[in-house]
């Protein structure tokens, strides 16, 4: 899964929601820390302002003492005054240093404090000491109004400067406090907002997350239930770009594969069922085909053995026994042929002969005892030479003819023909039966396949056509059928041999075309 689709994955969403919650909480906390630190700073500022103010007041006291002592010295108050001056001249330095120290963190205030000190130094060196020196010489001069004014100005300036420092420090502290208060207020508001909105935001995100997981999960559960109920055509949305898309993809692949497996199983079950049905039909067919002639043979034999019968009846019974035994024998031979087909063993004894003769002979034989159908012959004028096993080809033609008789309604015409075609020698038999049902056409040459014959009560083994086609194929020919408007045409096509002079004798029987059988 690419980074671009991070938000489309469930894991990505969980991470995103958690991160948003963490940012909300972290932001609020950071704001509180900032407010706290700002308040601490404001407290420090206040303490410094107080220290500066205290130091400034202290310094002012000493400056006033200095002024008083100066006044006393200049006033000529004797040694006590001189002593007082000497003390004052030194004692201001300590408070001045304290002020400088208190003002040190602020460059402006520190410079200011140094300025104050310089002013005091200047008062001492530039004014007080020279005036005191003058006072020793001329006390009157020293006490002049000019001197007094100068002193007042200088002392006032110094006091004013210390005052200013107090004011500035107090103002800076006030500013700092205000700023800290504003920040604290902001932190309070933000904290309150975070307190109210963060849970709402988190709950909202949690609901969104749950929905984005729960809804597709619900659909998956429903789809799984459908599959459990056997509805394999159910599909999940596999175009989603999250894990549910992947789940949908895998789920759909699973249901598809389940459907394929089920269809295969159903098909296999059906084919087994069909095989089972064929087996049952085969057993039922064999049972009928064998028991019917056996019933006649055993029944008539029993009658001959147990009853006195006259000569006519005896002969008639024996004829029936003979015919039915022959029928059984041909049934057994059909089964043997079918087995040969299965094993692919067909020994042909080919000879060159006129197929028209064989067709005519078999047509007459098939219909001589059949009064229910008319025969129409369509035989070509010239010999139709084929290189074939005469007995096997006879078997094929007889089979197709007997089918035509079997499946044609009484009064119908059976048309038998033989003629050269574009690809060889063609033999055909048309009946006027009901035709072969479309769903049976593909299987008509399968061994034991009898289509609708069992339901119609038409006897047979379902082997005749299968054996016939195998024989025709063994000759290098083809066999098939065409649906006619009123019936079916079965045809056989064999390689046509060119007439050779020494082939003799080819005795085509008179080929009556369009003549019904007797």
């Amino acid at each position, binding site marked *: 899964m690419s980074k671009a689709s991070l938000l489309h994955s469930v894991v990505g969403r969980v991470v995103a929601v958690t991160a948003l919650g963490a940012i909300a909480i972290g932001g609020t906390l950071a704001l509180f820390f900032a407010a706290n630190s700002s308040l601490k700073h404001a407290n420090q500022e206040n303490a410094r302002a107080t220290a500066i103010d205290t130091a400034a007041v202290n310094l002012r006291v000493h400056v006033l003492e200095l002024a008083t002592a100066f006044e006393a010295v200049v006033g000529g108050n004797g040694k006590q005054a001189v002593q007082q001056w000497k003390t004052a001249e030194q004692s201001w330095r300590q408070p001045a240093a304290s002020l400088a120290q208190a003002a040190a963190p602020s460059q402006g205030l520190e410079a200011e404090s140094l300025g104050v000190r310089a002013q005091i130094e200047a008062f001492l060196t530039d004014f007080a000491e020279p005036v005191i020196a003058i006072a020793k010489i001329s006390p009157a001069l020293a006490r002049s109004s000019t001197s007094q004014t100068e002193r007042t100005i200088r002392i006032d300036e110094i006091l004013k400067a210390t005052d200013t420092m107090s004011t500035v420090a107090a103002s800076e502290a006030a500013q700092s406090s205000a700023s800290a208060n504003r920040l604290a207020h902001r932190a309070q508001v933000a904290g309150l907002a975070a307190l109210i909105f963060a849970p709402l935001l988190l709950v909202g995100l949690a609901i969104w997350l749950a929905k984005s997981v729960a809804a597709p999960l619900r659909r998956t559960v429903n789809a799984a239930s459908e599959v459990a109920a056997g509805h394999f055509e159910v599909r999940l949305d596999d175009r989603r770009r999250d894990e549910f898309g992947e789940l949908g993809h895998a789920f759909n692949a699973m249901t598809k594969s389940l459907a394929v497996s089920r269809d295969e199983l159903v098909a296999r079950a059906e084919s087994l069922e069909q095989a089972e049905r064929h087996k049952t039909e085969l057993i039922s067919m064999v049972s009928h085909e064998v028991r019917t002639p056996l019933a006649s043979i055993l029944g008539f034999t029993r*009658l001959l053995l147990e009853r006195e019968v006259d000569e006519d009846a005896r002969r008639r019974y024996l004829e029936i026994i003979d015919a039915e035994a022959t029928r059984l024998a041909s049934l057994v031979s059909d089964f043997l042929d079918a087995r040969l087909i299965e094993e692919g063993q067909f020994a042909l004894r080919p000879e060159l002969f006129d197929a028209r003769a064989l067709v005519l002979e078999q047509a007459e034989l098939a219909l001589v005892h059949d009064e229910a159908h008319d025969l129409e012959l369509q035989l070509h004028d010239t010999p139709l030479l084929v290189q074939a096993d005469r007995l096997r080809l006879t078997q094929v033609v007889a089979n197709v003819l007997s089918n035509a008789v079997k499946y044609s309604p009484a009064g119908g015409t059976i048309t038998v023909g033989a003629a050269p075609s574009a690809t060889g020698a063609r033999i055909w038999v048309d009946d006027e039966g009901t035709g072969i049902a479309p769903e049976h056409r593909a299987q008509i040459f399968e061994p034991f396949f009898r289509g609708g014959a069992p339901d119609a009560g038409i006897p047979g083994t379902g082997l005749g056509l299968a054996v016939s086609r195998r024989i025709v194929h063994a000759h290098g020919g083809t066999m098939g059928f065409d649906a006619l408007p009123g019936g079916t045409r079965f045809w056989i096509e064999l390689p046509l041999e060119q007439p050779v002079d020494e082939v003799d004798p080819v005795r085509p029987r008179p080929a009556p075309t369009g003549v019904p059988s007797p």
Partner: protein
Amino acid sequence: MAARTLRPLILICDDEMPLRELIKAALGDTYRYVEAADAQEAEDVLGEEQPDAIVLDVMLPGKSGIEFLTELRRASTPSPSDLPVVVVSAWQSADDEQAAMTAGADAFIGKPFDPEDLASLVEGLIAA
């Protein structure tokens, strides 16, 4: 001649000619016979004649012997519904016999059968 006309009439319905011959031979001269090769022919016969018993094959072209018998038992005319019917079948499982009896057969006999068995079966049914 009067005695001859009193001989019971048997309808034999079987598509196999040799089987019809065998049934006639087995039952002998005691009866008169009328033959049908399928259910349709049998119905036509019943429209004209009143047989005393029917020997009926199961596997007939078109309508089966069982279907024919079921319809015969359902209809009161043209033949009495208590007309004795012997069903002859190449299929002789318990199911096949049960189907024949359910359809209304009085007796069931499988192919191949002993001619004497069939004869005594028919004789018993007509006498009853």
